[in-house]
């Protein structure tokens, strides 16, 4: 059976700062919760600070 087409209205077009993006389609295989993004960023910052203090090159 051919895939049914969704309605064309309400296309989420993002164009702030000159970038056009569409997010109504989701094909990505690995999904992350936003909390993981926040915690991951903080961990990266922590590791870099710790390395600079403890193991200076």
């Amino acid at each position: 059976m051919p895939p049914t087409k969704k309605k064309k209205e309400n296309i989420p077009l993002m164009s702030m700062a000159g970038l056009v993006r569409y997010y109504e389609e989701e094909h990505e295989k690995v999904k992350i919760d936003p909390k993981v993004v926040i915690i991951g960023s903080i961990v990266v910052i922590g590791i870099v600070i710790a390395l600079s203090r403890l193991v200076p090159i």
Partner: protein
Amino acid sequence: MSFMDSLAKLGQVLPAVTKPSQKPSLNQKLIWSIVAVAIYLVMSSVPLYGLQVSNSSFFSNFLLEQVIFASTAGTLAQLGIGPIITAGLIMQILVGSKLINMNLNDEEDRAKFTEAQKGLAFIFIIIEAFLFGFALAGNSGLSRLDFASIIAGQLIVATYFILLLDEMIQKGWGLGSGVSLFILAGVMKIMFWYMFGIVTVSSQNLPVGFFPSLVSTVVSHGNILDLIVNTTKPFQPDLVGLVSTIGLTILIIYLESININIPVTSQKLRGIRRTIPLNFLYVSSIPVIFVSVLGADIELFSTLASYVSPGVQRVLNAIDSAFVFPPPNTTIPHSVYALVEDPVGAVVYALVFLVLGIIFGLVWVEVAGLDPATQARSLVEAGIEIPGMRSNPRVIEGILARYIYPLAFFSSVIVTLIAVVATFLGVYGTGVGLILAVSIAMQYYSLLAYERSIEMYPLLKRIIGE
């Protein structure tokens, strides 16, 4: 498999942020956005592991990147949002100019477009991270490859997290776009420092601010005239710059609020007459963004090329100097006095910005679906008609074209001229930064007003089909 397909496949295998299962409230969106900006600002102040202070002179040339890519030299945010913006604009130009054939009205093509953007951004992250690593390796005790890998590893991970923070905000967890918020935060930081900074941070082109300089000059009975118009030092803020910053901010806000109204009637609202407002600054700050991204990328690769091929570096350097005024690596002050010291450079800078700004402004109208044909189709689909005209997209397109193309042309000219004049007057945060900051702040003001009305009057959600 085409090049676009390969990029899209790469975009698909990269980790992505989930979409919210239900729309977060305005307060939740504000909290996610504030947390993302806070993390970005912390990244901007954490120096890269292994970087020597003696490398700081290497970073002082990245003036355009500092503003347009929200990058901070020598820190985890060294690449900033550069790879995201560069990849996005390349894709838009390729699709807009029909060099790559994609129909953005088709769901599959839209998905492929966004995935390919992400794939290309990731490739740029890796290339730029390693180029930086190798460029900085000269002064370290480690082998060139080891040092480059340490720096590149940090930049790849940190910049990918920046990409995810932006994606998180864009997918609906936050408000608007992360890229815009990071640019706004970066420009505001520069402006704040130009006014109140108490020390010089040479690697980030940040001087002692105007007000601390004023106090110190008055106390030490120094030369107050140099604080009115800076005639000596690069990057030293002066009074003309401060007054121009305030004056041009008011002018941009005024211009952004002007609309050209087109009378229409709506079948849904029983023929009631109303108007559709077209922004006078139809392409907003887009021409300035495009020209600056091009200049910033040339600036970036010219500095990095110096460690690969001096010949290529000389050519890129010559091109780069047309995008920055006063030219980099000179002692010309960043004030109105620069016009006296380098009038030829000023004319070249103005011409480059003006010509490229007009071209990019007109390209954007086609790329972003702001062209008369797309707008006419949307109006007809929404049941909106122009009084006295048949409800035919072709007829409406003809009428809209009379407004849209002149608006796109003149708004490109006006925005570009404001950026150029602002730079000549030595505004705080550069002319490009000022235009970006004001237009992004105004977009956020409208977005906040919209979100608040939706929360206060849920019926509106149904009317606008959310």
